């Protein structure tokens, strides 16, 4: 976490969870970065990451994905996993982050 801060990168987690659920998750896991709530899949739809009906009671949720965006708003790196057990590792992201101005 401190490594991201040192690299000038702000991690932001986004899901359909309510702010309360996200707050509990962040507290329990000791995460200090920003958690955003997207219950109506507004941002998730704009990034084409809607996994229709995959949530509880057939709710739409986000498929796992990571995007590194530079300070001008340009996408610099993306990771769209094909298997949801496989996620980006922090080292991979930091490697790309160090190339940013």
């Amino acid at each position, binding site marked *: 976490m401190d490594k991201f801060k040192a690299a000038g990168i*702000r991690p932001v987690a986004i899901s359909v969870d309510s702010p309360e659920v996200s707050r509990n998750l962040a507290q329990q896991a000791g995460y200090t970065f920003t958690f955003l709530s997207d219950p109506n899949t*507004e941002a998730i739809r704009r*990034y084409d990451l809607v996994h229709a009906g995959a949530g509880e009671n057939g709710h739409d949720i*986000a498929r796992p*994905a990571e995007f590194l965006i530079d*300070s001008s*708003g340009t996408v610099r790196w993306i990771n769209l996993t094909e298997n949801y057990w496989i996620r980006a590792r922090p080292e991979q*992201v930091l490697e790309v982050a160090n190339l940013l101005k």
Partner: protein
Amino acid sequence: MTMRRFNWPLWVGFLLTLVAFITYFAVFVWFPFTRDFPWANLLIFLIAAVLVVMGVRRGFAPDRSHPTRSKVVTSIVAAVSVAVLGFFVFIVFVAARWLPPSKGAPQVGQQAPEFSLTDTTGKQVSLTELRTTPIDGKSPKGVLLIFYRGYW
């Protein structure tokens, strides 16, 4: 001899099958090295399979005190073990790939779509704010958006 009657390889193999299944989700999924490919769990499954096969041979041996009961019990335990392994492979390798193609996702070099969402304190936060608000007094180099399935 009691050890001859109790088919320990069968039961230890069965228990190990359950251990192999549960430990992936309870333990190994927390470490990228054992999560991305579940080699630790497949190794435990392999040892379990060897024991179950030994157990099946024992269970079907002619010297059992209750040959029919032994065969029935052995068959059921072996079948459940195979089913647990099959279910594990299904969850980790098959169902986990049922993801949308996301062909319309922003590509490298494109402008990231703007959004504004609620944070855990109830405040509206936009992408522009995220990439311009200073981190420890310095302007940020970038924002890492992590979309996840959530706990609903």
